[in-house]
């Protein structure tokens, strides 16, 4: 759905940005509430009904604080790269198609997204290394090493989807799931993609970069309060991107009976996000060398197997 006029472009930009903010805010609140419920706690209760406004208060608090840049840090890199990271993830959401011909749907969307997505570990590496803190440095190193473990299986599992559809256009991929979603057709591929996506999203059990019990906050140890608020925004936007990708590529996107497309999409996105939150509340953190072993000895063979199956069963 190519853009024909300036008004349409502005509408698109604003609409999708509203969508991002809507997801980020509701997800931020839901995650707090869901984890609190799983931990037999109350979670936020005071501000607004069921504490809905708590996150807003937190963001305002963080934004009004002074932005501290440590003495040892490389000031230029340290203060610009996190912004680039945010821009990257927001831009990536714009590359996805939405129902009602929202979104810039280019013909090589899938390719573009995964090429750009592989920049994020590098940006995290830069922030961590530039902050001049040893914990951040370890986190930065972990970030790069981790990306070696999950990046290849991630792309291979997506390759099977592209192979089946014969197109890199995500809208096409969604429409080819009209009868059966890909989760049923290639469960192995879904499994690999989901696990690799967890690592990409820095969610437990793969939150090695943030690793609060080991590295305190990993690459975010030294960032000031406004940047931390921004890092939260990055985290949630990344979450939105991840759950969107999972629902678009494997769960049939906005296709579904009775309800309008956008509602279906949001339902699927929130279900995926909820599952990820439950996993967060359940499991302990993996170790780096184990993740490496897991990535290369389990995920990679599974992804290759998935491609072979897809090729034999559906493409031929």
């Amino acid at each position, binding site marked *: 759905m190519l853009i024909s006029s300036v008004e349409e472009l502005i509408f698109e930009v604003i609409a999708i940005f509203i969508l991002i903010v809507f997801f980020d805010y509701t997800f931020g609140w839901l995650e707090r509430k*869901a984890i609190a419920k799983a931990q*037999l706690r109350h979670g936020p209760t005071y501000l607004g009904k069921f504490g809905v406004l708590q996150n807003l208060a937190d963001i305002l608090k963080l934004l009004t604080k002074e932005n501290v840049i440590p003495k040892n840090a490389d000031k230029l890199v340290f203060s610009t790269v996190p912004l680039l990271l945010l821009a990257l993830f927001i831009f990536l959401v714009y590359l996805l198609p939405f129902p009602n011909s929202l979104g810039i749907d280019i013909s090589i969307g899938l390719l573009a997204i995964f090429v750009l997505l592989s920049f994020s570990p590098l940006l995290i590496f830069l922030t961590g290394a530039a902050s001049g803190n040893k914990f951040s440095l370890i986190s930065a190193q972990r970030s790069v090493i981790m990306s070696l473990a999950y990046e290849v299986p991630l792309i291979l599992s997506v390759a099977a989807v592209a192979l089946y559809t014969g197109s890199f256009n995500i809208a096409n991929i969604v429409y080819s799931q009209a009868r059966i979603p890909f989760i049923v057709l290639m469960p192995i591929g879904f499994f690999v993609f989901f696990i690799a996506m967890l690592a990409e999203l820095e969610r437990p059990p793969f939150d090695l970069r943030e690793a609060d019990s080991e590295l305190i906050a990993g690459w975010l140890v030294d960032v000031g309060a406004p940047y931390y608020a921004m890092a939260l925004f990055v985290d949630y936007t990344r979450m939105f991107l991840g759950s969107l990708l999972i629902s678009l590529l494997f769960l049939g996107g906005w296709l579904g009976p009775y309800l309008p497309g956008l509602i279906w999409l949001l339902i699927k996105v929130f279900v995926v996000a909820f599952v990820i939150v*439950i996993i967060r509340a359940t499991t302990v953190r993996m170790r780096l060398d184990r993740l490496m072993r897991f990535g290369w000895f389990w995920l990679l063979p599974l992804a290759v197997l998935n491609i072979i199956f897809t090729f034999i069963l559906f493409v031929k």
Partner: protein
Amino acid sequence: MLKPIIETIKALGKERFTTTFPEEKERQPDNYRGLHRLDVETCISCGACERICPNRTITMVDANTSKGRRKLPQIDIERCLFCGLCEEVCPTRALTLTKNYEYTEFDRRHFIRRPEELR
């Protein structure tokens, strides 16, 4: 991996154990050891509580009562361990520990409670 996730989902339906503090309060037994209470009438000014206190929480100070001027215990709550030895050693049970445990103040000087304030 599935079983732990089932346990987490089961926990979603369980009852919460935290309380929203100012509205709900924890249940306390009758022998709870909270802040001190002094019965000025029965206190015989023997000073046993001052001598038994391991942390010098209690000092005997002059105070005006209906029976005239005499020595009564003054308590520095900042130093108190709430061990209950003073209550146990008191021969007339004049000094007791109550169920009240909320004692925030804006000024730390207010933590020194005069005998008249110990109700």
